[in-house]
């Protein structure tokens, strides 16, 4: 018997990405640069988050031409983003053979109440989370991989740090609790009880959790790894920097050797100006992508 789309195959795919860097790309050329630099996967997009932020308006799934171009350009896995709750965008990406779908707050949500029922699909999904409640709800819906939401397109690591610390702290709390306290914690977090029970038993999330949203330097990537990330997504950081190729390689190495500070010092030399970045306090509530989804 041959079974496709099993939980093990979907979650396992993300396990293979651990310790790696997933890079946003907008065409075949960028995808090839990312692959050569050692990216473990690329995210095919029409615009990187900082440009989506600058452009305003409604951000949707990328033009399938771009996704196809990237699929044909590289041998590493290709991810693509669908709007939160947009069943058809997700099915279209699945039909195109995309390896992983990001149900992403970077795009304008299609549904403000319901996220996708991700367990229904053969293709695996990654979703953003700010805390353990949100993370557990996404797992409950069938997400095979998580990432921090951070604040995409800002080049500011502060929100990703907040979300990673929050989730790690809440996991430690759940692990330390006695089982008879868990239902109340589930109620408080808005988390499925079964997911919390599993986290308590295993001492960790049942899926891989990457860092995303604001990683702009090799030191940022290494910081997220130290805080417990299994790997990192770099969106605008790479191809908005002065020397994307060098920058991409430096981020990959800093992620592998996140505790080798001399190496990170070497890697960080002469990288040129990273993306300018945005102070989160200057963003109005409506401009914060992390508030999208629940």
């Amino acid at each position, binding site marked *: *018997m*041959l*079974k*496709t*789309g*099993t939980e*093990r*195959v*979907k979650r*396992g*795919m993300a*396990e*293979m*990405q*651990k*310790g*790696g860097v997933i890079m946003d790309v907008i065409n075949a050329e960028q995808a090839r640069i990312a*692959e*050569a*630099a*050692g*990216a*473990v*996967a690329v995210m095919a997009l029409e615009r990187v988050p900082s440009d989506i932020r600058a452009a305003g308006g409604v951000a949707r799934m990328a033009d399938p031409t771009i996704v196809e171009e990237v699929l044909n350009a590289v*041998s*590493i*896995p290709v991810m693509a983003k669908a709007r939160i709750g947009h069943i058809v965008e997700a099915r279209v990406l*699945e039909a195109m*053979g*995309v*390896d*992983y779908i990001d149900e992403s707050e970077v795009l304008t949500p299609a549904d403000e109440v319901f996220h996708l029922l991700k367990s229904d699909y*053969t*293709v*695996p999904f990654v979703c953003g989370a700010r805390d353990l409640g949100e993370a557990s709800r996404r797992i409950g819906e069938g997400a095979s991989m998580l990432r921090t939401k951070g604040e995409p397109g800002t080049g500011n690591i502060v929100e990703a740090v907040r979300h990673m610390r929050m989730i790690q702290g809440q996991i430690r709390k759940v692990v330390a609790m006695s089982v008879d306290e868990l239902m109340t914690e589930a109620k408080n977090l808005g988390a499925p009880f079964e997911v919390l029970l599993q986290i308590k038993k295993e001492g960790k999330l049942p899926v891989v959790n990457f860092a995303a949203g604001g990683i702009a330097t090799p030191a940022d990537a290494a910081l997220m790894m130290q805080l417990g990330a299994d790997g990192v997504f770099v969106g605008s950081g790479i191809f908005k920097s002065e020397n994307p190729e060098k920058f991409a*390689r430096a981020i*990959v*190495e800093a992620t*592998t*050797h996140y505790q080798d500070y001399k190496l990170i010092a070497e890697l960080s030399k002469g990288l040129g100006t990273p993306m300018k970045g945005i102070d989160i306090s200057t963003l109005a509530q409506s401009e914060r992508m992390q508030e999208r989804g629940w």
Partner: protein
Amino acid sequence: MLKIGVLALQGAVREHVRAIEASGAEAVAVKRVEELSSLDGLVMPGGESTAMRRLIDKYNFLEPLKEFAQNKPVFGTCAGLILMAKRIQGQDSAHLELIDMTVERNAFGRQVDSFEADLMIHGVGEDFTGVFIRAPFIVEVGPEVEILSKHNDRIVAAKQGNFLCAAFHPELTDDYRLHQYFVNMVQSAKEVVA
């Protein structure tokens, strides 16, 4: 106690560490060339072979790994199998070139085609759940290579001397028989040297 390293440049390292420990050996994650010298055997995990190769080159791991393999056992799963092959279909060059075989990358298709299937593995046993994730398979093998398992007529596990490889991910299951098989290989190799 036997000490087995897991190459930890990228990929599913933790799962292999757990499986090795469950098979009665000590497991260590290996990130530096110097760490190879204290090992009795090495596992090359699943992950992205292109990403691993770039880091292998960057940290001058290629020659030390080839040297290590001259007298110590090596076990590669998925991307690790690709790193061990002498020939890769559609590519002019291979990586460590340890096993006399030709492999095809992503040979079963994209992620939506990833699957689980029951396998019979010679010398290991039946009903082994093979977890194939964007997996490669072995197209052909040289005369020195022993075929351990096939799925739909495609070679998915093989052995040549001290080298063991699998196109699937035994580390993603709780079935440690294949890891135990490798630990036994490491034990035998150590006894021969002693």
